């Protein structure tokens, strides 16, 4: 493959852009991130599920099957344990997702609870895109801080 010729000016602009990016956001974007969610039988559980789908679609994280960890499927537990970063989104403070990982000896690096963001738990499956976006933003903020 032929080497890309880049002018000195372009290189300087690239460095300047990187410096601004790094000043505003850490550039640890290549890190493999696993997303586990409770997917519970409530509005907040389903918000967690939808948020994980958003991360998967964006490519910023891999939506991983929490049931496999709960079922003690060795290959899946090993995968979760070996991943570089693990995010858990629980719908409510019961924290089933986090507890499931802990029972398998896997620590969550970032834990977000949907009800902590002001969403009231209800036993229905009605939620808005704004509520999902709120959760996605909170996870991203937690990863950057």
């Amino acid at each position: 493959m032929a080497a890309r010729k880049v002018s000195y000016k372009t290189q300087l602009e690239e460095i300047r852009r990187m410096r601004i990016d790094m000043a505003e956001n850490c550039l640890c974007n290549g890190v493999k991130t696993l997303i586990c969610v409770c997917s519970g039988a409530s509005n907040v559980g389903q918000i967690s599920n939808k948020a994980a789908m958003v991360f998967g679609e964006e490519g910023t994280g891999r939506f991983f099957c929490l049931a496999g960890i709960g079922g003690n499927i060795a290959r899946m537990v090993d995968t979760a344990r070996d991943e570089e970063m693990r995010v858990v989104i629980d719908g409510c403070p019961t924290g089933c997702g986090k507890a499931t990982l802990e029972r398998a000896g896997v620590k969550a690096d970032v834990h977000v609870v949907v009800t902590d963001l002001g969403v009231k738990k209800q036993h229905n499956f009605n939620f808005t895109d704004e509520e999902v976006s709120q959760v996605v933003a909170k996870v991203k903020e937690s990863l950057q801080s």
Partner: protein
Amino acid sequence: MDIEVLGTGCAKCKKLEENVRNAVAELGIEATVTKVEDITKIMEHGVMNTPGVVIDGVVRSEGRIPSQQEIRSWLQGK
């Protein structure tokens, strides 16, 4: 032994620093662990993707979080 952890301060950089410190403690070796958050100093190592680990001036990883086991093997010179 001088170990530098490169990263401007997100949860991922912090986890890498924790892995490094745990690996050092497990081996019981004498090492200085420094968190480098200054962008210019990070770039002086030629690292464009954080987090990164530099051991005695040599970049051992960038753009990922190596496991404690992998870090231990570097510290043991394997």
